Structures are given as structure tokens and as C-alpha cells.
């Protein structure tokens, strides 16, 4: 169940009164203004909004890449907004899988090695890491591309490798910032199909920013960023009527 009115009580992700201001050349931009959000385990949320409305800002805060000006974010009981930079890094490694629009992969590492990166931070043995990486690449359908370098992959395949890396350590939730933004329709559909599989079959929690209504349509709910806060689109009622997609 996704809420934007701050009324949730035991949700997986709980955002309360989130404020983010940037100052640029003496001028202050108030991007997020008292934003509330509740997301439960297994939810698939799409964020939409015009360029500059603060979608990326929100995702960065949720992923512990940045700290808010005010307000709090609690994930599975951890108040990440009061963590130190170092603690946040450790928390990220355990709980968040990132998929950005581009520049996700290290070009000098193979697909396998890229997916393995988050596991290097764990205490898993080499053979355990191998098993996990092979499983993740299997889920995204790239078992036959493990030894390829990013430049030998198509854009869609690169994003699938990125998704494999995001899920390989089985994080609490996935944050995707326009993962299909750079892809053609067909590749975008493939990625969306993959994300839906993750949500449905693997019960992943996914928060995704997108400009593409077709993509947003696949989510359980689409939230619009408007004047620094989230607003439900009319889709919520339909999604509930039709059940989980």
C-alpha cells in the first residue's frame, strides 16, 4: 500500500516532511517541500513529473546518496537521515540496488565482474560470489554474455546487466532513475518486462522515475511530483480495482 499523506504506520519505507533546498548563486531552490511517502514491501512505484521537479533529488535521498535539508526517511526501521556518511555507504551496500539512466557499468570490467562488484563488499567466498552472479545474470537473461565487456553489449543489455548488479546482493529495494530513458521502444519494453518479473515473481520493491507514460502504466501506482510534494494520479483507484498487475 502506497500513501502520500503521511498516514502509514508500519510501512517498509517511511518518508516524513522531507525538505530539500539547493542554493545556487545566492538563489535558493526549494525542490522538495514537506514530502510524505509510505511504500510497502513488494510495491512498484513510478514517479513522474516535469524536468526539474525533483524526481532525481527524491531518489537520491531515498537511496542515501544525499541528505535532506529537513525531514526523515526510515527504511525497515533504520532512520537513514540521521546516519553518518560512512554508515550510509554501508547501509547502501546492504539495502539499495541502483539503476541509473546511463554510465552504470565499469567499461574495463566484464558483465560478470560488473555484477560481482557489490558482492566484493560482502564476506562471500569466491565460489559463492560466482553462484550469485550467475543467478542474477540468469534472471536478466544474459547467461551467455557474462564475459562480454559493456561496449560489446547493446544499450538494453547494458541496462539488464545493471539490473543484475542491482539485485545480486538481494537489497531491500531497487531505485531506478529513468532506466529506459536512453533506450528504444523495444528495449524499453524488455526492461519493463524484466522489472515486472522482479516485482511479481521475486517480490522486489521497486521505485522508478520515468518520463514515459507507457512505462509508468506498468507500475502499481504513479505518483506525480508537484510543487515539491507527491500527488497520486487517478490511476491508484484503477490499480486497486484491477488488483496487482
Amino acid at each position, binding site marked *: 500500500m502506497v500513501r502520500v499523506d503521511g498516514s502509514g504506520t508500519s510501512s517498509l519505507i517511511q518518508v516524513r516532511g522531507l525538505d530539500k533546498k539547493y542554493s545556487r548563486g545566492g538563489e535558493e531552490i526549494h525542490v522538495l517541500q514537506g514530502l510524505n511517502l509510505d511504500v510497502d514491501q513488494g510495491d512498484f512505484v513510478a514517479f513522474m513529473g516535469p524536468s526539474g521537479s525533483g524526481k532525481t533529488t527524491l531518489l537520491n535521498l531515498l537511496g542515501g546518496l544525499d541528505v535532506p535539508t529537513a525531514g526523515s526517511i526510515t527504511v525497515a526501521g533504520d532512520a537513514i537521515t540521521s546516519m553518518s556518511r560512512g554508515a550510509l555507504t554501508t547501509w547502501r551496500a546492504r539495502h539499495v540496488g541502483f539503476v541509473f539512466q546511463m554510465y552504470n557499468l565499469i567499461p574495463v570490467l566484464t558483465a560478470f565482474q560488473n555484477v560481482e*562488484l557489490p558482492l566484493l563488499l560482502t564476506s562471500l567466498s569466491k565460489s559463492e560470489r560466482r553462484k550469485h552472479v550467475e543467478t542474477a545474470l540468469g534472471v536478466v537473461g544474459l547467461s551467455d554474455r557474462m564475459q562480454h565487456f559493456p561496449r560489446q553489449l547493446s544499450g538494453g543489455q547494458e541496462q539488464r546487466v545493471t539490473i543484475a548488479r542491482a539485485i545480486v546482493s538481494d537489497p531491500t529495494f531497487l531505485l531506478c532513475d529513468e532506466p529506459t530513458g536512453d533506450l528504444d521502444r523495444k528495449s524499453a519494453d524488455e526492461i519493463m518486462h524484466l522489472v515486472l518479473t522482479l516485482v511479481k515473481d521475486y517480490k522486489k520493491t521497486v521505485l522508478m522515475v520515468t518520463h514515459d507514460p507507457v512505462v509508468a502504466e506498468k507500475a502499481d501506482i504513479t505518483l506525480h511530483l508537484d510543487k515539491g510534494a507527491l500527488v497520486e494520479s487517478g490511476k491508484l483507484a484503477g490499480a486497486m480495482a484491477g488488483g496487482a498487475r
Partner: protein
Amino acid sequence: MKYARLLFANLFRKKIRLSLSLLSFFAALLLFGVLAAVKAAFSAGIDVAGVDRLVVINRVSLIQPIPISYADQIQQIQGVKYVTHSNWFGGIYQDPKNFFPQFAIDVDTFRKVFPEFVVPDAQWQKFLQDREGAVVGAKLAERFGFKVGDRVPIQGTIFPGTWEFNIDAIYKGKDGNQDESQFWFQYAYFKERGPERVKSTVGWYTVRVDNPDNAPRIAKTIDGQFANSPYETKTDTEKGFATGFAKQIGNIGALIFIVGSVVFFTLLLVTANTMAISVRERTSELAVLKAVGFSDMTVLWFVMAESLIIAVVGGAAGLLVSMALTAGLSKSAALASVLPIIAIPFSSLGVGAILAFAVGIVSGLMPAYSAMRLRVVDALRRV
């Protein structure tokens, strides 16, 4: 180490750049090694010159005589090639102001011990035949206008009377570094005209040894041999010979130091710049690493390690090749006659290794620091 693959993947990212960076360390340390060897060779040259000869004097003081009978005994000592003896005459030519040293020399052995003084053979033969003959240095001859054939009166001070000598020969130094202001005459004449007490004594002995390495041992043996006798000796290396060179070697050392400093400073700038560029190029990758959960410190060490590996590998190769090179050069006979010992001292190898390491650290420091400070959100926004 599980990060090794990432580290090496980054290192080999741009092979040409890697090669050039390695090459700069290689070249710098190669130069360093060769310069260190040259400097060592020059200072070894001093030492060799200084210890090739020993001076044996009376233990009490230089002016006390020692028995002439010691010559044979010293000659018997293992490692002694030649022994010659000299006496100080201390006479005056015309005016006490005109000081120059006069020595009574042993004509049979003198030239074997002092090969750096060159006398034309014909003149030397004439000198040998002439009991009252003398050999003067070229500078001395110039100073007083002495010519071969001149008859020169020297007023004795220690040994009374006016001694007249025939200038039979003029000597020169082999390479301009020798003292050309001495006046030599025959010990035989000195003994003949001198007082009774000098007939069985000499002023000092100069000993030439077969191997400079043995000089300290031979010096000890000589002094040991005459210990507890009425004429105890004090034997030392001929340091005076070396001190003349000392200044020039100092200059070479300073020059080498300056060249070396400039090379390492340039190396530092070049490497720091290369590392900075290489880090700036992969800002987004470093950001992704951090997003995935790599700590700031880990990222710092990645950059640092890259710079260090280049420094250590390139530097070690440079030092090794310079060692091989100098080892090869030291086999060349032509060179060996000029610079007798060519090898990089261990201490210099250590200094070179430390320098390379330090340059690696310092040049990695700035880029590593900025990589550490990098914020994921900024890095991913700007690309």
C-alpha cells in the same frame, strides 16, 4: 585480494598511457642509477688514489729520522710493491722568501713509487750519472728561470754549507694535477756530504701497495713490525694526494644532485597530471562504485595504489636496468682506466627506491583525495 582485478583493469585501461607513465619512472630511475654509479666511481677514484700509497714516518714526529735498514724489511711485507725513501733538506735559494721543498730521493725506486711524475729518459739518465745532479719541477723552473745545465747554489739550514747542484732534468705531472714545484737530488750525494747522523737514516718512506684494499692491513703490519724498537713508525695512507680532488668531486656531486632533483620534480608533475586526468575521466565510474557501497577510503586507495604500482614497477625496472648497464660498463677496459670502479652503491639503490615510492605517493595524493571527496550525486548529475 579480491579488489585486484578492478585495480588491474583500471591500470590497463589505457595501455599507451600506462606504458608512458611506466617509461617515465623507468627513465628517471635509470638515469638516477647511472648517475649514482658515476658519482660512486669518482669518489672511489679518490679513495684509490689516497690508499694506493702509504707514508711511513717516525712515530714521534715527521722530523725525527728512521733507520735506512727498514727499507728491506718493509719490502719483505706481503702486498708491498715498491718502497722509496726521502729526506727533507730544507735549504734556501738566494732568499728565505723563495721557499720550495727540496728532497733527497732514492733514485732507484723513486719513479716506481711516483709514476705520476714524468721525466724525459735522457735527462733522467744524465741525472743518474751526476752525483750533484738535480731534477726540478716545471713550475719551479719557470718561477726561477732554471734551465737544464744551470748550476744552482742552495744554502743549507739544517745541513750547513752551500750545496751546488746541476739542473739535469725537469719533471712534469702526468695530468696537470701534480705538484710541479719540487726539487729533487740524489740521496747518495746527501749521505756523502751530510753529517754522520744522517748516513744510516732517512726522513720517511713512501710505500706503494699492490691493492688499495690491502693498504690498511699493510699499514698495520709495518707499524707492528717496528713496534717496541727505538724507532717506532706511524704509517698512514697518502691523504694529501686525495684532497686535491675532493673539491672537484664535490662539484660533480652537486651537479648530479641538481640534475636528479630536476628529473624527479618533472616526474612528479607529469605523473600527478596523468593521474589527475585518469581520475577525472572516470568520475562517473567512481561515483557508481560509491553508489554500490564502496567507501570513500576504498576509492582513495584504488587511486593511490594505481599510482604506486606504476611508480614501483617502472622505478624497479629502471634501477635493475641501470644495475645491468653499469655491470656491463665496468667490464670495459677502456673505461676502467678512467673510472676504476663502476657499481651502484646499495645505499643509492635504496634512495632511488624510496624516491620512486615517494613520487608515486605524492603524485597519487591529489587525485586520490578528490576521488575520496567525490559526491555521487554531483558526479552523476554533471555527466
